[in-house]
């Protein structure tokens, strides 16, 4: 009887302890680190043309919740770069529709006159081209080149590196 009571008490204490344990959200630094590791894993997988492994690593990073402490533009930069890479992996794997979806998901994160938005426009243009939508592919390339020209102009006209990506 005493043994039973003791076991019950131990189980109760353990249950209360588990219930009180809150899952800890990743810090901004952890989230950044996880995204960086996903790129490194994708690099290794792409090198051996393992598109599935590359896709999985990048998609896990994409699905992670962004900590509130991450600035909106930093969030956009990180997620757009992940989406660009996912689109490129899908294009390499011959999955143009998936590539188009990833490029559009990335562009929904926002637009900026920077390399990351430009890359997504290039990737979307390539996906559309692969799907036979040449007209809209040309529009994407044109938009990408507008951004690219602005970045180059800042680089060369001002004689100094442009601010930001």
């Amino acid at each position, binding site marked *: 009887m005493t043994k039973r009571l003791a076991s019950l008490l131990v189980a109760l204490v353990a249950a209360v302890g588990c219930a009180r344990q809150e899952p800890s959200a990743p810090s901004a630094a952890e989230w950044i680190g996880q995204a960086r590791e996903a790129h490194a894993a994708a690099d290794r997988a792409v090198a051996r043309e393992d598109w599935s492994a590359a896709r999985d690593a990048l998609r896990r990073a994409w699905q992670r919740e962004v900590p509130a402490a991450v*600035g909106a533009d930093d969030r956009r*930069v990180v997620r757009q770069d992940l989406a660009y890479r996912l689109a490129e992996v899908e*294009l390499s794997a011959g999955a143009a529709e998936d590539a188009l979806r990833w490029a559009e998901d990335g562009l929904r994160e926002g637009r900026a006159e920077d390399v990351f938005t430009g890359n997504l426009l290039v990737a979307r243009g390539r996906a559309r081209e692969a799907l036979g939508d040449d007209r809209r592919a040309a529009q994407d390339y044109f938009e990408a080149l507008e951004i690219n020209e602005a970045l180059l102009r800042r*680089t060369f006209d001002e004689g100094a590196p442009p601010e930001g*990506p």
Partner: protein
Amino acid sequence: MSDDEPTEEELREAEALVRALERGSAQEALPEDALETAALLAYSRDGGALSDERRAAILDDLLANAKLPQPKSTRGPSWLAWLLPAVGVAAAAGVALLVVVTAERATPPAAAGLPAPPPALLTAQAAAAGGTRREAEVLGERMQSYRGEVYAALEARYPRGGAR
């Protein structure tokens, strides 16, 4: 001491009577018959009328000592007297809580300050727009090194052990 000369007691009573007639009120015990006589004499002199100075003095005395009714407050119901400060204290507490909560949440840093893309990356991007598959791969390769710089900047901006 002869009968014609006043006694000390009579002198004290006479002085008290004079003071009583001057002030209009008796401060100490006086012989009642003398007081009545003095009052009749004073009345026969001016019919009991009050002089202007005397009237002003009485009025001043009344105003100084009377418990006048307080004018009714026009500032609103009495419950407002405690409700308004209570609301003020609650509002101040709310503002303080907001400040504390806001301070606890890390302010997202601005995205500015990431490294500039090198010209080689930009030319690769221009070539990849409508270019061949190989040109797209070159863009990917150039991005790899630039990505390293961007992540190094982000890691410096969000150090380990920082806000969640």
